[in-house]
């Protein structure tokens, strides 16, 4: 499955539903689809649209879903400059706890089985395994 998502934060929810509703039954448990996959994909799309494409309506974020045996991989790639995921502060530290932003990648890491980035830092791969 491939999807070009317009750079519009208002579309994130609909794009997430489109991906989630097109996964073949039994690929992941309903609970993992309804919470882990939806939340992680919303995070990845939100980050890509806000920071990657700058909410520019003329740009898109590309989503590709690969299905394997007992595994789903979702690639989210924007055409921005990318970022270094190792340089993000820990949002659970007391000084950061009341910050409005900065929890996205932390949440993703806890919801999926594996997170990988491309070299430029403008593409993320979310891996969710069955079970």
């Amino acid at each position, binding site marked *: 499955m491939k999807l070009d998502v317009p750079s519009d*934060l*208002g579309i994130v*929810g609909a794009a997430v539903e489109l991906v989630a509703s097109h996964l073949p039954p039994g690929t992941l448990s309903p609970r993992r689809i*309804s919470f882990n996959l939806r939340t992680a994909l919303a995070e990845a799309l939100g980050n890509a649209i806000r920071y990657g494409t700058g909410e520019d309506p003329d740009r898109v974020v590309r989503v590709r879903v690969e299905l394997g045996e007992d595994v789903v991989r979702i690639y989210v790639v924007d055409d921005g400059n990318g970022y270094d995921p190792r340089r993000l502060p820990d949002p659970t530290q007391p000084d950061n706890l009341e910050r409005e*932003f900065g929890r996205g990648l932390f*949440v993703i890491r806890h919801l999926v089985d594996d997170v990988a980035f491309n070299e430029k830092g403008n593409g993320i791969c979310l891996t969710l395994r069955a079970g």
Partner: protein
Amino acid sequence: MRFTLKKDKSGVVVVGVEGQLIVGNRQELKQKVLDALEEGSRKFIIDFSKTGYIDSSGLGVLVSLSKKIREQGGELRLAGLNADLQTLFELTKLDTLFAITRTAEEALAAF
């Protein structure tokens, strides 16, 4: 996705979140609560019993609203989190920032 606001007889505003609270709709929730704050309400409950998922932007808007309400001498309580959402609050340690109850009725009784 829908937000509902109801004010109970003791003046507590109960906000229902149906569907999801994410980057695409968080501003709508924020504005509704800020409007009620501006109109004089000080006690708020956000009821997540009909909420499927919340992303970090949704969490962030709750943090922001809680601060603004506290600055006006009020309080924001959260209720109705399912097991996955409860875990999300625990792993981000936001469960330490909010008073969280099992149901909106329990939150109302605690005010």
